[in-house]
């Protein structure tokens, strides 16, 4: 217990003293998490809306495919993207491996099924009269979609929050595609994994505290947005 308590105190000290390694990792985490959540939303929100509001042959299969992606092991995503981005891979020329952009690519693959499925569930649950009301008042399809999005904004914000939480806490993809390079691709989670293996428990706790704070602030912000 003393070991845990001391580690926690050491962690707090590092956070409040502004340890540069902790804040560098936090900055990288923020960049890749926001970037990947944004891209995943740009794909997932319209795709989820489309799936919820249309019927086409193969929709069931496509939905099952997305559900499978939800449970896709992150190391497999990391491995596949690694293969594509490595020098011998088809996108090796882009030099994206062991860069923040490389991590973002992997995280987008992880996050977009989450935003898509959450959006699909939220939009499917809308009262069908809402769509008809928008249409009969002369709204275009785009405006109708925007109106329905606003009606289910709680569900959509949950989708973004779930995606953000998932990518911010991801380790496997960040290590495989980022390489854990200090000050460049080292995220809070990869730093925690590294430091705790070295026995630096306090440092790990400090990183964990920052990560939790980031997710807490995001949740607070989303609550504020929902009230708007």
């Amino acid at each position, binding site marked *: 217990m003393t070991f845990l308590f001391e580690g926690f105190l050491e962690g707090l000290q590092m956070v409040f003293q502004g340890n540069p390694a902790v804040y560098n990792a936090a900055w990288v985490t923020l960049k890749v998490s926001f970037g990947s959540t944004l891209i995943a939303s740009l794909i997932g929100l319209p795709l989820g809306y489309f799936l919820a509001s249309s019927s086409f042959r193969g929709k069931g299969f496509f939905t099952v495919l997305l559900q499978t992606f939800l449970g896709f092991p992150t190391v497999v995503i990391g491995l596949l993207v690694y293969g594509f981005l490595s020098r011998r891979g088809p996108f090796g020329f882009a030099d994206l491996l062991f860069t923040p952009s490389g991590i973002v690519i992997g995280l987008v693959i992880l996050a977009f099924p989450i935003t898509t499925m959450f959006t699909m569930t939220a939009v499917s649950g809308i009262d069908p*009269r809402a769509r*008809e*009301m*928008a249409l009969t008042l*002369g709204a275009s399809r785009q405006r109708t979609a925007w*109106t329905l999005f606003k009606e289910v904004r709680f569900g959509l914000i949950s989708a973004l929050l779930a995606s953000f939480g998932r990518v911010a806490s991801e380790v496997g993809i960040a290590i495989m595609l980022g390489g854990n390079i200090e000050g460049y691709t080292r995220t809070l989670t990869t730093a925690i994994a590294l430091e705790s293996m070295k026995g630096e428990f306090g440092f790990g706790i400090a990183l964990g505290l920052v990560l939790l704070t980031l997710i807490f602030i995001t949740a607070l912000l989303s609550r504020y947005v929902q009230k708007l």
Partner: protein
Amino acid sequence: MSRNFKDALIELEGIKLGFQQRLILDVEQLQISQGGLTVLTGANGAGKTSLLRVMAGLQESDQGKIRFKGDTVSYGSQGLEHRRKVSMLQQEPYLFSGSVLKQVCYGPISHGLNQGIEEKARQALEAVGCLGLVNRHTRQLSGGEKKRIAYACLLALDSELLLLDEPTAQVDQESSEKIRKLIQMQLDAGKTLVVSTHQPEWAKPLKPRLCMLEYGRIVSDTRWN
């Protein structure tokens, strides 16, 4: 059926609509002339709402054609032009989350208007006797108020054809009377209205054309003087 086809605002021909292997709408021919009130009546499931939804461009029929002022009506993304000429009041209107004013402004904004929207909305709210609710949240309204606000949404649009689905269902006598007066005002302004109702007697003072539906078919079409 209406006999004067020359000034038909909307014409339906050979409309068939099925649901779960059952024919719910089978309208051989229906013409509605410009100006005046047509009342659709019939038992539950007779096809009144389906007919209104088809006319509003909200539901595509399986077979048949609809022409509005002679032009064939399209559906889906192509149907926007038609939906901007025809508005429908739902039996249980859905109002978007937000203030009443925002709700009534929704239609004019959707129609691309960018001036005098709020004034138009306030006038429409005044006409339905709900100007006092302008800042109220739509979730705080009673059933009757929702219906009147939804009616105001239609009035703010100035549509060529107004379709009202059971406008007096679940409203008290006073609201029902107000709605009749509103319809009379619209008729006096030369508007065309199609109203579905279980109680056609309610519309009798408005001297409507009365179409009786049974199992999706129009079984009688008379002028009620």
